């Protein structure tokens, strides 16, 4: 098998001296759909922040596309094609939907490429085309999530990480968001998905990592996970 696109190796990290992540390793191959599951507050978002450079690691190394990128800041990671769609959307609230999407393509200067990506995003998330001129702060929760996802796609990254895209949404909207995830997977994109709902994630994933209390507790593929319901019970209390 070829070298992974993203390789996290024995990473430690935390906030003000307290480790949240301990000895985390994870590989993502080109074109794979990888999910990181686990209960709330066990380090899933922290892991994504370490990878995207929002948070400095306290040990270990991260390699992306063959280069050592440990310690690079977020803008440098974005420039290398790593996209992080953060939890809670983090939209630019006083900008329009269109402006938010255009910020996603901030590092792209080729107008033709930007237009093609915008058409793609509008095809996947048609609601955004109707809401072009609306301020992000006036959108509903589901629409905001779609803007966050669309903004991430506008970067045209080599790897896109979604942090709990279904969080806090109505079930019918969650289904829509997962339809989008399926489409992205089918289009061959490399995706890392952080999700609390393990069953949903399992149906999509080529590979799953279970994060428990800051450490990797289990890994395997989606079918293995579905075949071992005791994993769900012991770690997720389901």
């Amino acid at each position, binding site marked *: 098998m070829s070298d992974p696109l993203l390789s996290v190796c024995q990473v430690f990290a935390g906030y003000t001296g307290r480790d949240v992540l301990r000895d985390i390793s994870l590989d993502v191959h080109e074109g794979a759909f990888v999910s990181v599951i686990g209960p709330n507050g066990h380090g899933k978002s922290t892991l994504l922040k370490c990878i995207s450079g929002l948070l400095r690691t306290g040990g270990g190394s991260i390699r992306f596309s063959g280069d050592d990128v440990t310690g690079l800041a977020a803008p440098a990671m974005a420039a290398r094609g790593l996209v992080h769609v953060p939890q809670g959307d983090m939209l*630019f609230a006083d900008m329009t939907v269109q402006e938010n999407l255009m910020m996603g393509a901030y590092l792209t200067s080729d107008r033709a490429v930007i237009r093609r990506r915008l058409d793609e995003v509008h095809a996947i998330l048609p609601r955004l085309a109707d809401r072009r001129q609306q301020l992000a702060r006036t959108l509903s929760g589901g629409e905001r999530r779609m803007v966050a996802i669309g903004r991430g796609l506008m970067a045209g990254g080599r790897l896109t990480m979604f942090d709990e895209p279904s969080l806090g949404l109505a079930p019918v909207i969650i289904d829509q968001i997962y339809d989008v995830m399926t489409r992205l997977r089918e289009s061959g994109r490399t995706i890392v998905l952080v999700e609390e709902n393990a069953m949903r994630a399992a149906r999509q994933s080529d590979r799953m990592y279970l994060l428990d209390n800051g450490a990797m507790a289990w890994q395997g593929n989606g079918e293995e996970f579905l075949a071992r319901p005791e994993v769900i019970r012991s770690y997720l209390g389901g």
Partner: protein
Amino acid sequence: MEVIVQVIASGLTLGAMYAVAAVGLALVYGALGMLNIAHGAILTFGGYAAFYVITSLGLPMVAGVAAAVVVGALLGLAIYVVLVHGMLSAPAFETNIFIATFGIGMALENVVLKLFGAYPAAQPLAFDGAVAVFDVFIPVRNIVILVAGILLMVATAWLLTRTQTGNAIRATAQNRAAAELMGVRVRWIYAQVLAISGALAGVSGIMVSSLTNLSPTMGGDPMLKAFIVCVVAGLGNVYGAMIAAIALGLVESTAQYLLGVRFGLATLLVLVILTLIWRPHGLFGRTQVQRL
């Protein structure tokens, strides 16, 4: 009728002047959460830069404007390099930078005092003559200030909404971490914001001194007014600052006419208090003041 025209003309001139000073202040507060107390001193430097280039070097007025812009922008950049860059990641940035820029402002003011002396000088970059509007003679310099103010506001709005840099500035102000994820090098944006704000302050220094005089302490009054404008508008709100500046200029000139010149500032301050009781976050402020 003549009185009304007079009051409106004078109010618009004051408003345009305040707007140019206030927008720079608002821009920096909005993007960095930083109250730049040295803004007034940069303004003074701008006024003196134009004075020096025109009077001492004998260059044309355009060169005077350019000098004010360049000196203002460089001072803004210097404040970023010397103060902001190192303090940004430390805790209590807002408080520390407030005190630090207070100190820098005092130091800059004394540099002007040392270089040019304490005596007021006339701003050579000013226009004489008057134009009659409804039988009222309005000084040409007032009209120039108004037109220049409007042009600078339009240019600032254009920069913020129509350019890649402007989009990055607004994005950074609204959500710093998200802007970083988009690939925006936030610190470079901060440096640019301070330079733009400094350039605006430099031009504003010419405007202020062309109405009154050049003196080392001339930045104090417009700085205070600009701060009042920003508080009334809601700290960090650039468009709100533009509107509030014009409104406050009109209020001040009306108060000066009806109550007497010495009550101009007092009226403004009472108005600020009332505004803040009514809307604690300013006229255009959001319920929660946003820090990046």
